[in-house]
């Protein structure tokens, strides 16, 4: 592939949205209220919309007749390069909100920079996605505050979820070789530079939500190299079921 680094770079962005969108899709019809049900489904829908734009672009770059669906649904587990954070399960609504919040803050900062990319397609996708993600961030921030500064029970649950997922935040700021190559060409975003603003924002919201900022400095990594938690395999079984069972068909 001529533009292999760009291809890998796009997957690095898109896989996060794919896996998070898939997780949110599990919740449709089972939310704590009709309004949150609609909101989570809507966020999932936004993410899948973004995913399609990214994979369609990646398919074009690959230039070998592979389609958006081949990229989304026919890779092996080790070939997905999403961060570990987004594949974590919907343990309860506090985990869903914590996962969303910890990703949204990053996602918003990331897209704000991607908008300045020299790659016009990526820049255009970023502009369109930013509108959506600023809404996602508002939704997850508001709910984090409600649950953190709600009842004793909700505070405990929210704190537990933040503590549980904190270990996956550092990976957001790791760079792969493809990332570095794309940064040097002015196409990619240097995520190491987002880290400070990220923790600043996250900690401010946690404080406002009367929650404690976790002190642990032990972080997990591996998603960007395709080394995932045990949760991903099951998610992929659902995601890939039809494409694997009925290969080479149109739907």
């Amino acid at each position, binding site marked *: 592939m001529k533009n292999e680094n760009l291809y890998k770079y796009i997957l690095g962005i898109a896989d996060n949205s794919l896996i998070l969108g898939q997780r949110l899709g599990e919740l449709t*019809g089972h939310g704590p209220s009709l309004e949150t049900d*609609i909101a989570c489904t809507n966020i999932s829908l936004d993410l899948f919309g973004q995913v399609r734009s990214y994979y369609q672009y990646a398919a074009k770059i690959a230039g070998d007749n592979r389609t958006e669906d081949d990229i989304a649904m026919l890779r092996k587990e080790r070939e997905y390069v999403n961060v570990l954070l987004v594949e974590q399960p919907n343990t309860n609504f506090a985990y869903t909100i914590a996962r969303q919040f910890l990703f949204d803050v990053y996602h918003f900062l990331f897209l704000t920079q991607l908008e300045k990319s020299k790659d016009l397609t990526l820049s255009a996708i970023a502009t369109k996605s930013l509108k959506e993600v600023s809404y996602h961030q508002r939704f997850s921030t508001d709910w984090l505050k409600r649950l953190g500064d709600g009842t004793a*029970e909700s505070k405990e649950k929210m704190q537990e979820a933040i503590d549980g997922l904190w270990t996956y935040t550092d990976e957001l700021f790791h760079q792969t070789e493809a990332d570095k190559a794309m940064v040097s060409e002015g196409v990619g975003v240097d995520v190491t530079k987002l880290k400070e603003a990220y923790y600043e924002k996250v900690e401010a919201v946690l404080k406002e939500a009367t929650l404690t900022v976790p002190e642990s400095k032990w972080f997990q990594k591996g998603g960007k190299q395709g080394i995932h938690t045990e949760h991903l395999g099951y998610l992929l079984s659902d995601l890939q079921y039809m494409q694997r069972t009925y290969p080479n068909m149109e739907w």
Partner: protein
Amino acid sequence: MSEEQVKNLEEQFEARIARDEKIEPKDWMPEKYRKTHIRQMSQHAHSEIVGMLPEGNWITRAPSLRRKVALLAKVQDEAGHGLYLYSATETLGISREEMYEQLHTGKAKYSSIFNYPTITWADMGAIGWLVDGAAIINQVPLCNTSYGPYARAMIRVCKEESFHQRQGYEIMIKLANGTPEQKEMAQDALNRWWWPSLMMLGPTDAESIHTAQSMKWKLKRKSNDDLRQQFIDQTVPQAELIGLTIPDPDLKWNEERQSYDFGEIDWDEFWQVVKGHGPMNKERMKARVNAWENGAWVRDAAMAHAEKKQDRKEKKAV
């Protein structure tokens, strides 16, 4: 109010409906009108919400990104319909919590069709094509029903439903023109969903207890049997067009009636499902009750947070 006054009000009320005027939430209305509307509208809202489950069942397994996005959007629309139908029903003096309570305890009904399982992808096509198709036939006349909030909600619902129906039929077209396996999947789905879809239009006129009064209030414009015939006449050519066979050996065009004759509906099955003993009744209710109970702490937190915020605001003002 004296009996005579009430009688006068009732006469004026019926006259307004006869003149095609809309009844609005603050208008006087007979108690029976209010109750009948709460029953039908909440049942309709519940059907939207329970109806999210059989289709939600395929969101994580949709075969392509395009189909996944369309399915998510569709199920989200249903949640939206539920939301404004609940809101419209609330104008009659019942809270959403009370309506949920009625659903969860089995006091309120929802459309029986959602008590069938969705076991293959083709069921997403069949539901859109047949179930939404039958729903539209039921619902279009309601855009002109007498109660204003319901009529206005139905205008939007019907627009979206007709989009869903085309989307479902398009899934079926694709399958019917696909590989032998896909075609078989489509035929199998039609076989399983055809009869329940016919039942969806309600018991035969002879057995329907609500028809006469509902006709007067424009909650119903045609009888169940007429609606069923309309659905069959509309759907049979659509099946033929894509090479699928309606699973009814007695189905035959009747030249004289300019309509299809069709076979006997298994009403025992219909009543079994209505009475709570269909294949998925218990699972559907369990899913709804679980969502509600597991969400209690979230709703409590939102309430507590809002109160704290209000307190802080008041303190600041002092």
